[in-house]
């Protein structure tokens, strides 16, 4: 009995849930420096959770089999989400203090949302999936609107909430149809039930389409992407960083699991939807980003584009596809951590940097920073020898394995278009002459510096020893 309780506590999700409440209380009772201390504690808690996930064994999960699943793919994405969460809490600490937003609730919200994401990734049941999605979304709605005195922050929170609620409704309706026509909520049971049939009936197709719409909203795939640029723009920069880095990881894992576990035999049905989402996201992401002057909107469109590439690997729906998705997601996380670590430390005339044109002259006043931004941008554009190239490379390997030639060619064409706006940032930093020099300050805390250097190191040096990540991702099973 005692042993059992002991085990239950060390299930990573339960540990994280309990620790999040501890963090909340800790922040509540702390008089001074509540925000800073709670953030540190949150990072510590997340680190412990990573250890637990790493040492996780299947037997711990036996009691929750109908709700949650356990696999190497799930663990990989959980660790990725936790790492992203840690990185974004660390890099955003100074920013929050800088804009005098010292609510200790912020790290706690991040913790709850991370918890929701871990449950999302692991969910093996429509009900647990929905609840997990809501847990992470509700935390994020609040986080987006956390800067209460700012109209744009409130607007982005409300916008995110209304659209998120709408998509949750659609998702739920899809769930009810699937439940109604299969009689089960469990992924495995649904899969078992569906394996008896050669094609889906109309109700299930409707259900599938509704769920796809809801999930496309969560990963912000075109045409359900409208909220992304607005929410990214309105929310405080560091919250945007969190939005860009972490929830995408969970949503991508979820859409992969949803397509490949209950509906694995109905590839033709869902692959058409994903195919369209993928092409539309790549091209809209590439083209719409060109005209942006706000760096956060630009990164929003860039993330939409990246989602398009990850969905190519989903259309491929083979082992290489899963491998490609995990490599791509890893590179996406690393690149976004790096760029946000820089953005959250750049100040123009004592305001945090927002306009791309303010980067003008950065290469003179701060050559190392501008070199780093250039490397990140080239990596995002998928130019070798940086990590972003290998993400795309693996995606295309998976696609060609499945003989998706047209999709691959469209993918590379979109990557050429998107190269334009990444290059534009380098152009602004290096090619444009600036009249006013030295107005850009780069102040970065020691911890963020470590995160930044580590992620830059991974971006640049991945090429020298790719096998480390690739062996891990090759062994993943969904």
């Amino acid at each position, binding site marked *: 009995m005692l042993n059992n309780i002991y085990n239950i506590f060390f299930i990573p999700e339960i540990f994280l849930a309990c620790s999040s409440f501890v963090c909340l209380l800790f922040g509540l009772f702390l008089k001074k420096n509540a925000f800073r201390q709670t953030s540190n504690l949150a990072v510590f808690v997340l680190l412990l959770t990573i250890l637990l996930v790493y040492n996780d064994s299947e037997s711990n999960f036996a009691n929750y089999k109908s709700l949650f699943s356990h696999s190497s793919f799930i663990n990989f994405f959980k660790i990725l989400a936790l790492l992203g969460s840690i990185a974004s809490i660390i890099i955003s600490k100074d920013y929050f203090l800088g804009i005098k937003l010292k609510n200790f609730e912020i790290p706690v919200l991040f913790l709850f949302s991370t918890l929701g994401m871990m449950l999302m990734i692991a969910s093996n049941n429509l009900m647990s999936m929905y609840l997990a999605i809501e847990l992470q979304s509700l935390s994020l709605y609040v986080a987006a609107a956390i800067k209460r005195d700012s109209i744009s922050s409130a607007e982005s929170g409300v916008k995110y909430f209304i659209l998120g609620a709408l998509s949750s409704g659609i998702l739920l309706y899809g769930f009810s149809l699937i439940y109604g026509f299969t009689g089960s909520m469990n992924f495995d049971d649904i899969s078992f039930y569906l394996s008896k049939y050669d094609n889906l009936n109309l109700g299930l197709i409707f259900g599938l389409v509704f769920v796809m719409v809801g999930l496309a909203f969560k990963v912000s795939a075109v045409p359900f992407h409208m909220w992304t640029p607005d929410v990214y723009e309105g929310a405080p920069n560091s919250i945007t960083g969190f939005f860009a880095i972490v929830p995408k990881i969970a949503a991508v894992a979820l859409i992969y699991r949803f397509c490949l576990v209950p509906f694995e035999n109905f590839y033709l049905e869902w692959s058409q939807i994903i195919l369209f989402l993928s092409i539309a996201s790549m091209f809209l992401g590439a083209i719409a980003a060109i005209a942006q002057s706000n760096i956060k909107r630009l990164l929003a469109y860039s993330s939409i584009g990246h989602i398009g590439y990850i969905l190519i690997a989903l259309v491929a729906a083979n082992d290489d596809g899963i491998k490609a998705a995990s490599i791509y997601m890893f590179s996406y996380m690393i690149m976004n951590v790096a760029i946000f670590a820089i953005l959250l430390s750049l100040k123009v005339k004592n305001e945090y940097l927002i306009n791309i044109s303010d980067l003008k002259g950065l290469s003179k006043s701060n050559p190392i920073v501008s070199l780093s931004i250039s490397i990140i941008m*080239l990596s995002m554009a998928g*130019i070798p020898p940086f990590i972003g190239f290998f993400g795309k490379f693996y995606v*295309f*390997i998976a696609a060609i394995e499945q003989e998706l030639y047209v999709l691959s060619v469209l993918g590379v064409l979109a990557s050429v278009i998107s*190269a334009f706006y990444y290059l534009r940032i380098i152009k602004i930093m*290096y*090619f444009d002459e600036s009249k006013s020099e030295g107005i850009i300050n780069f102040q970065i805390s020691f911890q963020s510096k470590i995160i930044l250097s580590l992620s830059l190191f991974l971006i640049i040096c991945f090429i020298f020893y790719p096998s480390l990540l*690739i062996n891990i991702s*090759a062994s993943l099973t969904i």
Partner: protein
Amino acid sequence: MIDWPLVSVIIFLPLIGALIILFIKEDELTSINIKWAALLTTSGTFILSLILWLQFDYSNPSYQYEEKFRWFDDFNFFYHVGVDGISLFMILLSTFLTPLCILASWNNIKKRVKEYMLSFLFLETVMIGMFASIDILLFYIFFEAVLIPMYLIIGIWGGNRRIYASFKFFLYTLLGSVLMLIAIIVMYRNTSSMSIEFLQGNYFSYNTQLFLWLAFFASFAVKIPMWPFHTWLPDAHVEAPTAGSVILAGVLLKMGGYGFIRFSLGMLPEATEFFIPLIMTLSIVAIVYTSLVALAQTDIKKLIAYSSVAHMGIVTIGIFLVNQQGLEGAMMQMISHGLVSAALFLCVGVIYDRMHTREIEFYGGLVQRMPLYATVFMIFMLGSVGLPGTSGFIGEFLVIVGAFKFSSYVVIGAAFGIILSAVYMLYLYKRIIFGTITNNKLADILDINTREKIILIPLAISVILLGIFPNLFLDPMRLSLELIITNYEIANAK
């Protein structure tokens, strides 16, 4: 043979130099140190690459100095480098031109010396790496990484329309090379190998070959560049700083020719056979059309840029003749063009540094003030025209001899282009060098100084050397080219 990894050392020595430069803090006083560090590393690389040539086994058609390490655990991608007769001189050309480029930018690059030298050293690493790769993925990575330093070189240190030119250069070439990426993956999927050596048999069905060929063509035709994909070249050349144009004309254009020989001829022989008429047509149009366009230019650099397109037209004809004379001629023409056009751009740089204009109208009568300059310029101009005794002659002659076996129409087109090249080059020379000085601003112009002599005289010597002793260069490459031709003929005889 040599038992240390010579090729890897040559590839990565410039990168190590770049890392050292990264840690030199730049200010007024230390920028000279940065320049010296760059010059020493690139010269060291050149000397090392000479060992490649001296120790080269002429009787071995396949790769030498091979190094092979496992790179990816899940796929058969290797870090696999080596040198054969085809890549040997491409590597030598890169290592020979880079120190000259550093010297050529000694005084005229005043801003951001550090970044400039970093770009050049990185560029040298990727250029050599690309020519030395035996693994196609490695080749691709180097091939595309070339864009990064070149984009910066054009964009930061270029002329007035540098931003337009740098974007056009980058996106145009990227568009070509991403299609090649797809082709590479398809190749891998069909054979589970990425080794250039292995794939130089005939492994693909006819239809696959056609698509793969087109994808490679998209990449190399933009790079070399062939008409009508050449429009990025004049812009890039005109806006790039002198050294940038030198590398662009001297080495980067050869990447296209090199790729055609290795990939199109070597791996896709049947598709090549099918597309030969297309290539010949485009090449002849390129030669005649761009020569005529060159005739009408008012900017010296633009004129030389268009002449490059015409000369590369001769190269593509030579390559796709697929016979011994044609391929040898194409290789010689590539080497010769690498030296001559690089030298011509350097010559333009000499007067541009003094007068800051490239308008032909502005000059005239330079021989009065700059006799030495007029002499070296003449050597290069004649090399470009293809006068016997200079390097240009060997290449053009061999290509035309080879073309007789193929079709006399091609010969007529190529020969017409060569005549036109004499017309526009001699006309250019006449307008710039001869006559009396009419422009007062030229009255005080100085002849080339010691630094410029150090740059131009080795080039002049090698142009003449190549013209008088072509076998010095043809012997090492002969067997490697024969191997390609034999494979090609076996594949098409089936």
